[in-house]
């Protein structure tokens, strides 16, 4: 009985202890939660401030860049104007110089070109004449050669035709008669004179 009582007392004590422990834990949790919320709030504030600062910096940078661009544009316009003036002046100076030089040299150049043109024209005319003469000679030569060839071919053709004609048209009796007449002609020409001399000798 006594042991049961002790057990009950111990259990009750244990329960009480646990209760306090739970309560303490709950209180601690609440405290920590509040602290976390506080810290988060502070962090948010810092972040908001930083964001705001960044925006300010960006805005200032933009303003400065716009100012710089404006200044650079002005500078560019100013430099362009000066450059154009310088170029115009240089061009005017150079044109004047060239005009003066051209006036001085133009007569000499004209004379030189004209004389060169005359020389070239004479040389060209001479060359053309020579080539023309040479071409004429070659054409005449070619013409003569071709005419000679044609004459020879015609002659050969006529001879061959006449030969064929005679060979076909002459009978054996005609051939024999021509041979005997040729002997008579040779006798008239005294071709056989050595026979007479031989006989007499």
């Amino acid at each position: 009985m006594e042991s049961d009582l002790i057990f009950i007392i111990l259990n009750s004590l244990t329960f009480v202890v646990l209760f306090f422990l739970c309560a303490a834990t709950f209180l601690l949790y609440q405290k920590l939660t509040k602290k976390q919320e506080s810290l988060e709030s502070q962090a948010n504030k810092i972040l908001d401030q930083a964001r705001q600062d960044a925006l300010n910096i960006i805005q200032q940078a933009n303003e400065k860049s716009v100012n710089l661009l404006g200044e650079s544009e002005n500078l560019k316009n100013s430099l362009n104007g000066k450059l154009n003036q310088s170029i115009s002046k240089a061009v005017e100076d150079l044109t004047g110089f060239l005009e003066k030089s051209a006036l001085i040299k133009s007569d000499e150049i004209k004379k030189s070109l004209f004389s060169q043109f005359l020389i070239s024209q004479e040389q060209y005319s001479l060359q053309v004449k020579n080539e023309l003469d040479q071409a004429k000679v070659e054409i005449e030569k070619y013409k003569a050669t071709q005419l000679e060839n044609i004459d020879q071919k015609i002659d050969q053709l006529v001879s061959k035709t006449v030969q064929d004609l005679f060979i076909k048209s002459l009978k054996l009796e005609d051939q024999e008669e021509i041979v005997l007449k040729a002997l008579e002609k040779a006798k008239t020409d005294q071709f056989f004179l050595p026979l007479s001399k031989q006989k007499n000798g």
Partner: protein
Amino acid sequence: MDNSQLETILTLEQSKKFISNLEKSHLNGKITKESVEKTKKTLLSLPVVQLNLAFEPSQELIEKISHWFLKNYSQKVLLQINSDPSLIAGLTLSLNGFYKDYSLKKVLENYSSKNV
């Protein structure tokens, strides 16, 4: 010289005729070595006339030509006859190193050269 040797330069008919003439030319009709030598000597003493004709002459024409020489020069001649169709007609003659062209080919050549 036997018949076969003669046939290398004469036709069979010409060979027979040659031998026949040779036999006739001897009184007793016998051909002896002496008679052949005599005939050879006679032939070698004859003048040789070379004739180029445009055609192969018949035996009849050869005899006519031979007779022509006998008639006109009272002399026998040896005829050396060749044929050359390019002459067309007529003949060329050679005697003792002299040459004469009586061919139609020559006439045409002369005519052609005069007209060029």
